């Protein structure tokens, strides 16, 4: 263990406090991920207070126009302080003005904030939140981990050629940011650490929606609301939104009673594998979804099956969340990212060659076999079964032949 003299104290004397959370809102309502992050920030900072015998705040950042009502909600869901950036130009999200305002808040020193920059900063890993995290951290010149789903704060011993040239050192109160990597094959832990010449704060990350639990609304909680004052210049507003229209189409898999999901098990003959999935979905009145693996694999698919292997049909942590009556997983091993998007399904049926595949652990029915061989007879059996079920509904089936 390193002694006190070699511990990772700030070398340039900056003061850093609190955990900040960018709470994204749309049309005056928080996205669920905003409340999830506040809940996790509350848990982390309560533990921080216990571990380090020092209380630091959870600070919510809310941008928009006439969004005062959201401040109360943020406090009831775990925030101690809420910074409100209110401006007509912020009514809908735009990256440049949002970056100016959030970075400005982080750097401001006023009656409510005596420190130089936030110690930690969480952003949602959404379309806009991800972009904002990148530009805010470029502006604040600090480190950012993206798409995290597990966080912890610890004193961490580190030995690193640049960060600790003299040998191992303890970095106190460090935010460990874990992210599933490489399409979910690995879990990397990212740390943002000072080096001998520079302090890097905030330690920041974006958080995958659905990773954390929000707190229940507590009306007893108190907090401070800070209306942040700022001006936006011509340069901040140079990107203009001309028009906006609702996106038609797209595939909403959550509207179907049956989802047939196709995974990398179709690799041997992707077009045929996809065709089987589509047939099965059609027979059952369902739709076809795919795993992340199929999207990234870029299989050479034929014209009929190509449209199914698109990101818009991806199920899982970074795709859609579904909970149909029946979820049929063809050739899906069951990475944790995939599981997050489907494990609330009522009945999960997996077809897989590998009996040890993780998906078995959260399936109700596991069919061991090659999907190319299993699906055609399964399809025929389902079609036959559907006819029987329609011809003689419910009761007569009881006591039938096994």
């Amino acid at each position: 263990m390193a002694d006190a003299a070699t511990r990772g104290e700030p070398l340039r004397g900056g003061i850093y406090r609190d955990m900040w959370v960018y709470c994204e809102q749309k049309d005056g309502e928080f996205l669920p991920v905003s409340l999830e992050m506040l809940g996790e920030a509350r848990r982390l900072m309560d533990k921080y207070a216990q571990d380090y015998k020092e209380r630091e705040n959870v600070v919510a950042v809310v941008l928009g126009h006439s969004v005062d009502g959201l401040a109360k909600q943020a406090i009831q869901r775990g925030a101690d302080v809420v910074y409100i950036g209110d401006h007509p130009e912020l009514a809908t999200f735009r990256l440049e003005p949002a970056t100016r305002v959030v970075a400005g808040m982080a750097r401001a020193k006023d009656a409510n904030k005596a420190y130089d920059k936030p110690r930690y900063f969480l952003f949602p890993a959404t379309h806009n939140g991800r972009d904002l995290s990148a530009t805010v951290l470029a502006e604040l010149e600090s480190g950012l981990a993206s798409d995290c789903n597990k966080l912890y704060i610890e004193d961490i011993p580190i030995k690193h050629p640049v960060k600790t040239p003299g040998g191992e050192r303890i970095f106190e109160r460090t935010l460990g940011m874990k992210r599933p990597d490489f399409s979910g094959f690995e879990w990397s832990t990212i740390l943002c650490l000072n080096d001998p010449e520079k302090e890097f704060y905030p330690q920041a990350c974006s958080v995958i929606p659905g990773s954390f639990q929000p707190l229940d609304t507590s009306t007893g909680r108190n907090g401070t609301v800070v209306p942040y004052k700022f001006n936006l210049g011509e340069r901040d507003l140079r990107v203009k939104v001309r028009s906006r229209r609702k996106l038609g189409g797209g595939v909403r898999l959550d509207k179907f009673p049956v989802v047939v999901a196709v995974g990398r098990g179709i690799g041997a003959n992707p077009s045929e594998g996809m065709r089987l999935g589509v047939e099965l979905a059609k027979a059952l009145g369902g739709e076809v979804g795919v795993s992340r693996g199929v999207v990234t694999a870029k299989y050479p698919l034929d014209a009929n099956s190509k449209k199914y292997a698109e990101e818009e049909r991806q199920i899982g942590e970074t795709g859609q969340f579904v909970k149909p009556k029946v979820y049929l997983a063809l050739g899906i091993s069951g990475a944790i990212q995939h599981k997050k998007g489907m494990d609330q399904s009522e009945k999960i049926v997996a077809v897989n060659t590998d009996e040890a595949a993780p998906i078995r652990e959260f399936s109700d029915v596991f069919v061991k076999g090659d999907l190319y061989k299993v699906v055609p007879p399964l399809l025929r059996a389902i079609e036959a079964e559907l006819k029987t079920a329609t011809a003689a509904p419910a009761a007569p089936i009881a006591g039938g032949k096994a």
Partner: protein
Amino acid sequence: MEYVVLVKGVPDFRQGKVKFKEDNTLDRGNTPTVLNPNDQFALQAALEAKVKHGGTVHVLTMGPPNYKKILQEAMSIYADKCYLLSDRKMGGADTLATAETIAGAVRKIGNVDMIFAGFKSADGETGQTGPQTAWKLGWPVVTHVLNWRVEGERLVAERTAYDEIEEVEAPLPAFIVTDPGFKPVYRQATHRLKLQDLQEQTQARLSEFDRHFAAWTAADLALDEKKIGFKGSPTIVRTVEPIPRAPQERKATVYDGAKDEDVKAVAKAIVAAVKA
């Protein structure tokens, strides 16, 4: 007009190419490196720019010397000139240090009107480097772009934003991050003919690649060494571990897919659940 396309080499995740170690982490040494799949959209966008507005397409990547082949892969889609930013001093860079390096290269190319990048790389999947590079250059950035055009001195682009499509405009120079849904639009016959010509030209250029290729070091870009590579990176990767298996949540009944009666039982269970 001058265009820059940012591309990246990533492990080839296709079945049969990707290799894993015993602990299920990626075996980088034995997995080939390929052009990041999403970068083809950025290259398509730059090609569209060249067809419609003329100019030069500069393709840029950062990495070890063998990343030259990533640039060749890019040129097979389209490139006039290719640049490899390669230097030990650039190694180990996180997104912030990478953005600093790329911004330096864009300044060296000079007079650039538009930069195109793909949305997220298949390996890191951070989606951070594009917006951070734009911010360092002080340029407006438009992300998730589905299609774009130039009107006078301004970029007009359609982008996805959740369940909406926004049409935005920005002054040039501007930074465009293409969405995986990006599609170039060629409505005029002259454009389609020009496209064909340019595609033939880039194939011809590929056979004499080195004449259109330059390798740049940190010194060439006059970069502050404290801001690039390992030294300029606030973040480190502490550990890489396989994702632990979740505890069993459902008790699966196992059927043999080769047995007729098993398949029938499964069909029955599925139909019963659908009808329930």
